[in-house]
C-alpha cells in the first residue's frame, strides 16, 4: 500500500515538473505571438500602445502582440535581463542611452536590410532618419519621437512678481525664480533636479553657456576638441545653477527626479520647470492649476543669446534572439508611419518624427508653439547630438548625478565638479581611440 502511495507521489511530482516544462515551450497553432516590451511606461501610454496594437492585429490577423510593461524605474534593467536570456522578447523599446550597450552586447537586431527601400523613410524628418542610424550605418531602432527641453512657466506668478514675459536666458530665469520664491508661503521659484538624471539639467546650462564653441556633432565637445567642462564659461554656468538652487528652489529638491519635479509644477508649488514635451499632457490634467495659468517658453539661452537643444530619442527595435523577425519588422513599420505614429506622438506629447506633423495645427498652438519657435530658429536653438550612445553612459549618469548632489549640498565646489567631469570624458575619449 505504502509502495503504491510512494509511486503515486513520485508520479505526481514528475507530472508537475513535466507540465511546468511543457508550458514553457512555444505553442504552434499557426498564429505568431510577438512579445513587445516597453520601457518608459505609464498607464495612459500603455493604453495608447494597446490601442495601436489592436489596430495592427486587425490588419494582421495571424499576428498577436503581447505587450509587457514593467514599471519605468526598473524597465531597462528588466529588458536587459530578458535580452541576456536570449529569448522571450521580439519587439522592444530602445532608447538613445541604451542602444550603445545593448548593441555592443549583440542583443539587438540590425534592421537596415529589412528597411531598405521602405516608403516610411520619405515621410520622416531628417532628425528621425539620422537618429535611426548609428555611426556604422546600422539600424537598431526606428525612433517614435523626440524628447526636447522647454521651459514650463506660471503666467500668473511671473505677472504678480512684476515681469511682463517669461525668461529667455538662464540669468533672467534666476532673477524671476528668485523673485517668486517664498518658502513661507510654500511657493518656490524653480523645480530643481537634484536626484535621478540631475546631470542632464546641469549639462543643459553648461551647454547653453558654451553654445558658441560647441561641436554640433558632439554636445560634450568644444570645437577645439576639448570637453565643454573645460571651458571657463562652464564655471559661470554652474555657479548660476548653484545659485538657482540656493535662492529659488525647495531644499528637498536635492533628491528630486522626474516625478517630483513634474508633481511640484503640476500641484502649483513651483513657478518654473525644465522638462520634455510629454509633460504637457501631464500638466494639462492638473486640477491644481488651470490651462490659463501656465504655458511653455523656448529653452533658456546662455550669455551669447544662443542655447543648445539636446534632442533625446527612443524608438522600437528587435531583439537578436527573436524568432519572428519578419513579423516584428512589420509591427515596427506599422508603428512608425501614418496615423499610428501621429497618434502616438500627439497623445504621448512628443516631438514628431513625421514631416507632415509640422503642418498640423496641434503643434502650432498652446504649449507646443515653443517647439515650433525653436525649430524655426536653428541658429539660436542649436540642434546638437549628445554622446548618449556610448557604452559607459550609465556609469557617467551615476557619477555625474552623485557629483551634482555633492555640489548642491556643499561637499564639492563647482570647479572641482568640472575638473572631475573634464578628466572623466577626456580619459574615456582617449581610451576609445
Amino acid at each position, binding site marked *: 500500500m*505504502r*509502495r503504491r*502511495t*510512494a509511486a503515486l*507521489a*513520485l508520479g*505526481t*511530482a514528475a507530472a*508537475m*515538473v513535466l507540465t511546468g516544462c511543457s508550458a514553457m515551450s512555444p505553442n504552434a497553432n499557426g498564429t505568431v505571438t510577438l512579445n513587445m516590451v516597453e520601457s518608459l511606461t505609464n498607464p495612459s501610454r500603455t493604453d495608447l500602445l494597446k490601442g495601436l496594437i489592436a489596430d495592427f492585429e486587425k490588419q494582421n490577423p495571424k499576428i498577436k502582440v503581447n505587450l509587457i510593461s514593467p514599471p519605468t524605474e526598473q524597465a531597462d*534593467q528588466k529588458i*536587459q535581463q530578458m535580452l*541576456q536570456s536570449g529569448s522571450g522578447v521580439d519587439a522592444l523599446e530602445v532608447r538613445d542611452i541604451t542602444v*550603445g*550597450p545593448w548593441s*555592443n*552586447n*549583440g542583443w539587438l537586431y540590425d534592421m537596415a536590410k529589412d528597411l531598405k527601400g521602405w516608403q516610411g523613410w520619405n515621410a520622416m524628418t531628417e532628425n528621425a532618419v539620422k537618429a535611426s542610424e548609428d555611426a556604422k550605418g546600422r539600424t537598431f531602432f526606428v525612433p517614435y519621437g523626440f524628447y526636447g527641453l522647454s521651459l514650463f512657466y506660471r503666467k500668473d506668478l511671473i505677472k504678480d512678481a512684476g515681469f511682463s514675459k517669461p525668461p529667455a536666458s538662464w540669468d533672467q530665469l534666476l532673477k524671476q525664480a528668485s523673485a517668486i520664491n517664498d*518658502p513661507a508661503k*510654500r511657493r*518656490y521659484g524653480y523645480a530643481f533636479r*537634484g*536626484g*535621478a538624471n540631475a546631470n542632464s539639467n546641469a549639462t543643459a546650462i553648461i551647454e547653453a553657456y558654451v553654445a558658441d564653441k560647441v561641436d554640433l556633432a558632439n554636445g560634450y565637445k568644444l570645437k577645439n576638441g576639448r570637453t565643454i567642462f573645460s571651458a571657463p564659461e562652464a564655471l559661470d554656468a554652474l555657479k548660476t545653477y548653484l545659485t538657482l538652487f540656493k535662492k529659488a528652489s*525647495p*531644499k*528637498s529638491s*536635492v*533628491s528630486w527626479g522626474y516625478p517630483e519635479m513634474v508633481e511640484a509644477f503640476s500641484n502649483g*508649488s513651483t513657478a518654473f520647470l525644465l522638462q520634455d514635451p510629454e509633460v504637457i499632457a501631464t500638466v494639462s490634467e492638473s486640477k491644481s492649476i488651470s490651462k490659463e495659468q501656465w504655458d511653455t517658453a523656448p529653452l533658456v539661452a546662455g550669455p551669447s543669446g544662443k542655447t543648445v537643444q539636446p534632442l533625446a530619442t527612443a524608438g522600437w527595435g528587435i531583439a537578436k534572439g527573436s524568432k519572428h523577425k519578419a513579423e516584428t519588422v512589420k509591427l515596427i513599420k506599422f508603428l512608425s508611419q501614418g496615423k499610428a505614429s501621429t497618434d502616438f506622438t500627439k497623445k504621448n506629447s512628443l516631438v514628431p518624427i513625421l514631416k507632415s506633423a509640422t503642418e498640423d495645427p496641434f503643434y502650432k498652438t498652446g504649449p507646443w508653439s515653443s517647439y515650433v519657435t525653436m525649430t524655426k530658429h536653428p541658429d539660436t536653438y542649436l540642434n546638437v547630438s549628445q554622446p548618449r550612445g556610448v*557604452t*559607459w553612459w*550609465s*556609469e557617467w549618469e*551615476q557619477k555625474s548625478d*552623485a557629483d551634482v*548632489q*555633492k555640489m548642491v*549640498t556643499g*561637499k564639492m565646489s563647482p570647479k572641482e565638479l568640472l575638473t572631475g567631469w573634464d578628466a572623466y570624458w577626456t580619459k574615456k575619449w582617449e581610451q576609445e581611440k
Partner: protein
Amino acid sequence: MPATSATTTGPKTSRPVRKQAAPRVRNGPRGGRKREFTTRRGLLIAAFMAPAAIFVAVFTYYPMIAGSQMAFRHWDLNDLTDTSWVGLDNFHRVFSDPNWGTVLGNTGVWVIGSIVPQLVIGFALALWLRRRFRFRGVYQALIFFPWAISGFLIGILFRWMFNSEFGVVNDLLQKAGLIDEPVAWLADPHKAMIAVLIANIWYGVTFFAIMILAALQSVPDELYEAAALDGAGKARTLFQITIPYIRVTLVLTVLLRVIWIFNFPDLIFGMTGGGPNNQTHIVTTWMIKITQQGDYGKASALGLLVVAGLLLFTVFFLLATREKREVRS
C-alpha cells in the same frame, strides 16, 4: 547513560549493544520497524518533497551558484563582450570603493539603531497589551497594522512625511514650537539617516510586539503570584521571571530581525534612494545600485560578502546564546 540503565536489566557483556537498539523500539510497536521507516517512509517523504526540492534547486541554488561565479569574472552588462576570469578583482574593487566605509558604517548604524529601539518599544507594547483592558483588540490591530504594509511603500510614505516643504513632520514640529523653520530632513545625510531609522523603528516595533506578546502568554500566572508572595517588585519580576522565561523567543526574534534588517533595502530605497550623496546607503541598497549600473561582477562579490557575513554572525550568535543556556541550566 545507556550503560547505567543496561546494568539494571542484564549481563554487562551483551547489554550495551542491545540497549543501543532500544530507541528504535520507541518508533513503533516492534524493534524491527526501523528498517521499514528508513526505506519506504523515507522514499515517500522524498517523493512528496521532490517538487519543492526541484523548485528550490532551480530557483534558489542555481542562481546562487551562477551568481557566485560572476563574482570572479568581469561581468558588466554594458559590455558583455569580455567576461573573463578576474580572480579577486571584484572584491578588491568593493573594498577600495570610496563609498565602502560609509556603507559599512551605515549598515552598522542601521542594524543596531533599528534593533535596540524596536526591541525595547516592542517589549513595552507587548507588556502593555498582555494586560486585560477595554478595546484591547482594537489597540492590538492598530499596533500590528504596519507589518502588513510593504517596506517600499512605507519608504515613500515617510519620504512625503519628512518632505521639508510639504511634510507633516515639519508642520507638527513647527506648530509645537520645536523648530522655527522647516528642517530639510532628507537633504542632509545625517538627518536623512535619522529619518530612515525612525521609519524603520516604527515599522519593526510591530514584529517584536507580536512575537513577545505570544511568548508572554505562555508565562504561567503562578510564577508571578509566587514572585509577588516573595515580595518581588516590578523590575525584579521582569528581569528574574519574565525575561528568563521568554529568553529563547527573544534570542530567536533578535537573530531573525538582525538578518532581516540587514537585508532590508526596501525602505531606504523608497525613502532616500541611498542619497543624498550616497550617504544613506547600506550594503544591500548599495548592492542594488551597483546592479542597476550593470556591474554584476562587483555586485555579486558584494553579495557573497553579505552571505558570508550573515552566516558568520548567525553561527557566533547561536553559539554565544547556547553557551549561556548551558551555563544557566
